[in-house]
C-alpha cells in the first residue's frame, strides 16, 4: 500500500459552460501538509469542493487511498472559506456538530468540543451564539469544528486569514503538533506566502484561466529558521514570479 492518501486525477470542472479548472491531477501523502496558492478566483475553492466530494467534477476522479470518492461527501475534514457557524446553535453545539453527526451523544459531544475552547482562545463562549463573537473567534471555532470531523485528510480553505500574527502563530503551532500526533494529512489554501513556507511540505501554485496546477515546490524537510535563509528568499521570488 502506497503512502498516498488522497489522489485527484485529471479534474476538469466548469460553471455556466466556462471551464474553471482544467486537468488538475494532484496527490497528497500521509502526514503531509500542502499549501495551495493562487490568485483570487483561480479555482482553489472549486478544487476543494471537488476533493471534498461536495461537487462532482465534469470529468476526473478523486480517490481516498484506493477508494474512489468522486462526488461523495463525508470522507474528508473540510473547512469552508466562510465560517458557516449556524446562528441558531450555541458555539458549543456548532463546534460539536461533527461529533453529533457521527452519532456521539449530545452531552458527550458538547463536553468534548468544549474541552478545546481554551486552547483556541474562545473559552467562555460555549453558551454564546456566533453573532456575539468577533470574526477571528468565529474562524477559530470553524477550524476547531473541522478538526472534530476526525478524518485523516483535512482540506482547509483560508483557515487563518482572519487572525492576527500572534493568534495565527499559536494556531500554527497547535496545528503542527496535532498533525503529527494524529497523523493528519492536510491541504490548505492561503494567501500568506510566509504561512505557506512555514507550514508546508509542498506548495502547489494554481494559475491560468482555466486554473491548473502550474508549479509544485517541494520545501526542505526541516524548517527551523528556514524563513530567514537565502533558500527561502529564492522560493519567495519563484512563487511571486509564477503567480
Amino acid at each position, binding site marked *: 500500500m502506497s503512502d498516498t492518501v488522497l489522489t485527484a486525477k485529471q479534474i476538469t470542472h466548469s460553471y455556466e459552460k466556462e471551464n474553471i479548472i482544467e486537468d488538475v491531477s494532484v496527490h497528497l501523502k500521509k502526514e503531509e501538509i500542502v499549501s495551495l496558492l493562487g490568485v483570487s478566483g483561480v479555482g482553489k475553492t472549486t478544487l476543494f*469542493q471537488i476533493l471534498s466530494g461536495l461537487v462532482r467534477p465534469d470529468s476526473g476522479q478523486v480517490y481516498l487511498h484506493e477508494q474512489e470518492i468522486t462526488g461523495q461527501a463525508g470522507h474528508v475534514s473540510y473547512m*469552508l472559506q466562510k465560517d458557516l457557524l449556524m446562528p441558531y446553535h450555541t458555539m458549543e453545539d456548532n463546534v460539536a456538530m461533527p461529533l*453529533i453527526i457521527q452519532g456521539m451523544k449530545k452531552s458527550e459531544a458538547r463536553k468534548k468540543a468544549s474541552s478545546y475552547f481554551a486552547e483556541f482562545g474562545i473559552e467562555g463562549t460555549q453558551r454564546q451564539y456566533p453573532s456575539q463573537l468577533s470574526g477571528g473567534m468565529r474562524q477559530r471555532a470553524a477550524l476547531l469544528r473541522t478538526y472534530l470531523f476526525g478524518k485523516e485528510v483535512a482540506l482547509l480553505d483560508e483557515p487563518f486569514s482572519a487572525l492576527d500574527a500572534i493568534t495565527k502563530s499559536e494556531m500554527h503551532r497547535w496545528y503542527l503538533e496535532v498533525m503529527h500526533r494524529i497523523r493528519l494529512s492536510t491541504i490548505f489554501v492561503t494567501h500568506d506566502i510566509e504561512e505557506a513556507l512555514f507550514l508546508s511540505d509542498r506548495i502547489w501554485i494554481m494559475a491560468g484561466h482555466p486554473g491548473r496546477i502550474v508549479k509544485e515546490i517541494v520545501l526542505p524537510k526541516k524548517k527551523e529558521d528556514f524563513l530567514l535563509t537565502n533558500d527561502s528568499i529564492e522560493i519567495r521570488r519563484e512563487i511571486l514570479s509564477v503567480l
Partner: protein
Amino acid sequence: MLEIVPHYMLPSPVSVVQAFIEDFPLLMGHAKTTVVEALIGLAIGTALGFLCAVLMNHFKGFYKAFYPIVVITQTIPTVAIAPLLILWLGYAMAPKIVLVIITAFFPITIGLLEGFASVDREAVSLFRAMGAKPMQIFRYMKMPATLGEFFSGLRISAAYSIVGAVVAEWLGGYNGLGVYMMRVKKSYSYDKMFAVIVLISAISLLLMWGLGRVQKVLMPWEKTKKHEE
C-alpha cells in the same frame, strides 16, 4: 334609516357582560368541546402539515403529485364535504377535528416548504461535508433554520383553529360554541351572540399568546440579535 350598526343588532356592552356572566357555566361547557376539537385538530394538522412539507421537500415526485392535492383540499367548501364527513364520522368531535386538520395543515406546509427552499445551500454543503445523513441535515440545520417560517405558518393555523372548530360545529353536533352560537342567533339573543364571539376571540388570542411564548423558548438565539435603531 341606516345607522352604522342598527341598535337592535348592537347590544350594549353591559348586556353582553351580563349575558356572559349569566351563561358562564353553559359557555364553559361548550367552550371545552370546542377547545378540545381545535387543539386536537391543530396538533394533528401541524404534524400532518409537517410531514407533507418534509416529504414534498425531500421527494421531487411527491412534491409534483402532492402540491395540487394540497391546494385542492383548501378549495373545497366545507359544506360540500360536511355531509360526507358526518356520514363517515358521525356527529361527535371527529368530523370537526378533521375539518380543523384540513384548515390547519395547509399554512404549515406552505410555510415550511418556503423555509426549506430558502435554506442556505452552503450550510447544507457543510453538513454534507460532515457526512450528515438527510435526516441529520434536517434535524440540525433545516429545521432550526426554518423554525421562524414554521411558527409563522402555525400562527396562521392557530388563528383559524378555534373559529374553524366553531364553524364545523354548525354542520351538526351536540355541543360546542358553534352549537351555542347558532342557537342564540336563532333566538335573536344578540347579547349572547356577542358574548360568544368575544369568548372565541379571547380563546384565540390566548392561543396565539401561548404560541409566542413557545416560540421564544424554542428560538433562544433570536434574543441575542442586536436591535437596529
